[in-house]
């Protein structure tokens, strides 16, 4: 099988001095070319899972294996082909998109020539080429989201982690981002995505995992899950499985 996939086995995480596990014995696979959604209430452990998968933090127990074209690869190699788009605007707003892409591109081991070429391409696709030399702190929220995405994509990753990529943006920006991501997936990029917008996720994802209190409560394709739980939409299924109580207090 071509592309990048991830195998998660019995994965647990407990932060130092924490009373409970943030993740408990999670096991599932993310197949290559998937658009894989990870959903759950606030504090469910979604960001912890993505952080472990991206190599930001270590797991306490269990394993997470990376495969490229069915061959197992190490984390360092995985980092070269993986992209990460955090929920925060994790870039330098006092600089321009080009200056940010030059900086982060270099850290993905790209040459100056590659950075220049990829920057032009990605900024054009995301509708930012006209403002490529403007300081980002003058941009709207939607434009900043697209810059955030562009940075995670500068090295044309084969697997992309997106943490709430459309939060706080207008409909136009949201559609542009999702359209771009779908196109990217068609070209073979595996996408791992978290969101609170269930209707958006329903249209966007192939497979999903529902996590609550660090535990996997359901994982399959959307169609299979809706049919298995006899629900009409993902939001109702989500409420059904996780309950209506607040989870962030």
């Amino acid at each position, binding site marked *: 099988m071509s592309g990048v996939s991830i195998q998660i086995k019995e994965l647990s995480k407990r932060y130092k001095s924490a009373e409970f596990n943030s993740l408990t014995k999670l096991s599932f696979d993310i197949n290559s070319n998937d658009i894989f959604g990870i959903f759950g209430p606030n504090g469910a452990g979604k960001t912890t899972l993505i952080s472990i998968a991206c*190599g930001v933090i270590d797991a306490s127990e269990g394993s997470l294996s990376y495969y490229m074209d069915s061959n197992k690869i190490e984390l360092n190699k995985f980092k070269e082909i993986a992209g990460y788009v955090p929920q925060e605007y*994790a*870039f*330098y707003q*006092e*600089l321009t998109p080009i200056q940010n892409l030059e*900086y*982060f591109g270099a*850290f993905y081991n790209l040459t100056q020539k590659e950075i220049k070429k990829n920057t032009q391409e990605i900024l054009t696709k995301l509708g930012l080429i006209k403002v490529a030399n403007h300081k980002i702190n003058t941009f709207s929220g939607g434009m900043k989201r697209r810059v955030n995405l562009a940075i995670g994509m500068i090295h044309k990753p084969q697997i992309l*982690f997106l943490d709430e990529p459309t939060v706080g943006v207008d409909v136009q920006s949201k559609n542009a981002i999702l359209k771009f991501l779908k196109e990217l997936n068609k070209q073979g990029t595996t996408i791992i995505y978290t969101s609170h917008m269930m209707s958006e996720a329903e249209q966007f994802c192939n497979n999903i995992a529902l996590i609550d209190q660090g535990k996997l409560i359901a994982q399959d394709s959307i169609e299979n899950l809706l049919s298995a739980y006899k629900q009409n939409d993902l939001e109702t299924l989500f409420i059904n499985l996780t309950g209506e109580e607040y989870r962030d207090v």
Partner: protein
Amino acid sequence: MFKFWMSIKKEYLQLINDKVGLLLMFLMPLFLVLIITIVQNSAYQIVNENKVSLLIVNKDKGAQSVRTIKLIEKSGMFDITIDNSVDSINIKRVLLKQDILTAIFLPNNFSEILEQRAKNISQEMLSDFGIAKDSSFNNKPKSSFQINFYHDPVLQDNYSISLINMLNSLISSVENSLMIESVYSELGIEQKTARLRNIALSNKITINKIAASNNNSNLQPNSTQHNVPAWTIFAMFFMVISLGGNIVKERINGSFVRLKTMPTNFLLVLYSKMFVFLIVALLQVALIFSVGIFLFPYIHLPQLILPTNFLSFISVVLLSALAAVSYAIMIGSVAKTQEQANGFGAVSIIIFAAIGGIWVPIFVMPEYMQIISNFSPLQWSLKGFYILFLKGGNWNDLYTIILSLSGFIFINFSIIYYKLKLDKII
């Protein structure tokens, strides 16, 4: 290497976009060094150039007051104004009104009392020798003779006392001369007093003033030699606002985490920050020292004289800069918010500066503050500059300074390493 240069480029771009940081690092110290040097210059001139304004009010009509005034003039210590119309009640008012620092009031019986005292002592001496005893001599001890010395309250106590001692010594020499004249007169050999006076003068012990420097430098601590290095050190450490704040911002906005997901070593980011801000610190030194060397003479301030031991000078500059950079990165790594980094960073530097002798030299501080000042890294840097600028010091003299600053840098980097490790950034 490409990563490193791109990282340096990013730091440079961030720096030139940080207008407030640039103002604080370059313009603020320039203003401070100019203003404080001008303000302190007159105070240093009083101490170093020893020309103190002195108002003499002479109510005496005798010869001894004239003799005393001539000696005071000859000492070269004073800018003298003589105004005999002032009375003892108004002298303080005149002193303050005319902006004169000191005044001495010679009463109308000054010559008479001086001559009488000399005569009494000479009679006593001759009596002890069994040579003569004047029938008019009264051997009862005389009450001490007092002359009033007035001074501006801003004049430091120890300096006033030095001036009083000097005036006392001049009056004593007139008195001694009178005493010799009186003894010779009693012995009937008045014509020989001039010869004796000449012998006494030629035998006078001369005390040479030699500064304890290693290169026979005659440089004196003046406002420039103190303020230029002092405010440069302050400016270097004040980069905590720009660098510390910048690190917190990157940590909070997720840039550091994003970098962690990339196939690179985070230490590269730290090295590029250190490199850029070391250059900033060196530019601060170049700018502020250039002002001291080239601009100050044009505005009638003492010119900054650089030390001759250039290698040691560069070492102290580099160590001070590295101490400032490491402190700023440490604050940036430990602080939870940008406000915390800016607030704590600025306040801690101001406290370090205050106790470290940046604002006022250590020697004017009370003893316990002089002990406390040893805990300020700004004081170690300043001491290093003092050793080089004023004492012509060598590596041996700089040993403790180099050790202290290196220790400080090591501690800062250890904290940075521990904190970044704790945050899983490295």
